[in-house]
């Protein structure tokens, strides 16, 4: 199921392009959105398997780029996810 606020945070990050602030400290960003504590933790842990089913796949790609993940690592980590879910 789509997580609106998690998606919104990723969308806003993409729009603002504020990569350096995000990479320096994610907490001020996470505080701005009513994201569940479980999902916030998934963001802190870079837990792609927990995040992926709840956001659009294109947004996820943008987001992982903002986190500094190159395509090679991104693809490898996606393939570790056992239960793909289409959005």
């Amino acid at each position: 199921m789509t997580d609106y606020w998690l998606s919104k945070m990723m969308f806003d990050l993409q729009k603002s392009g504020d990569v350096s602030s995000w990479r320096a400290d994610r907490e001020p960003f996470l505080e701005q959105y009513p994201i569940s504590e479980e999902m916030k933790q998934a963001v802190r842990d870079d837990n792609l398997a927990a995040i992926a089913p709840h956001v659009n796949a294109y947004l996820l790609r943008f987001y992982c780029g903002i986190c500094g993940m190159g395509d090679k690592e991104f693809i490898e980590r996606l393939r570790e996810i056992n239960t793909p879910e289409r959005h």
Partner: protein
Amino acid sequence: MAQLVGAFASSHAPLIARDWDILPPEAKQKISSGFREMRSRIEELCPDLLIMLAPDHWVNFFLDNLPAFCIGLGPEHGGPPEPFLSPKFPYKKLKGHPEFSRHLADTAFESGFDPSLSYNVNLDHGFCIPLWQLGLDPLPKVIPIFVNELEQPMPSIKRCFDWGRMIRSAIVNYPEDLKVAVIGSGGLSHSIGEPTMGKIDERFDKDCIDSFSKANEAEIIEKLIKNLPNAGNGSEEIRSWIIAHAVMNGEGFELIDYAPILEVYVGCGWAEWKIA
């Protein structure tokens, strides 16, 4: 009266721009030659206006308001915001055609559609990679039509056929002399941000290409309903090709080229629908 002079389709993989300087020569050659041939064919037709169909990649729309179809009505449109494309793209603004786009919107509403409308849109790589690679000079006026091809639920394939026929009706009933070409941007198969990312489904692509040449509408719809869910999420962009196909009444399809280019993650295709 306006004249429909032809329709085209091409892929728009963002890595064509992002990685242009590091792509293998053979990939660049294939991409360049596909767009070069397409440009030559468009230039022969001398269109005054391009109606372009592409998805919005989270630039203008979000989950708080996600139109199935949105027509850009403004006198001009913003160029690509993506940092990997913006410096390469020769225009900060693209000229629109407010009179025709208003006519197109009126035709849509009179035809049973309720599209979203916007006087202020930015055209991301979905529109601008083909325009950048085509290098049309001067660039004709552009009417962008955004089609939701990114987030489920999306307009059905049948609805896209109907939408294409509506565009044709708007073109042929426009009272002023104007040569209009249509460009569908997207596809063919690719997978983005899901475990199959990077895989290209050549069988799906070749079946689509074959279908545009031979299959009737019902067969195309049936095949896509069956095959789209397994062809990668980017393959949903085949809707842009479907709409171009429908604008041309399903006739005149000619493949310019096809190449599964792994370096850009996309089964890249270029096509023209010729007026008989």
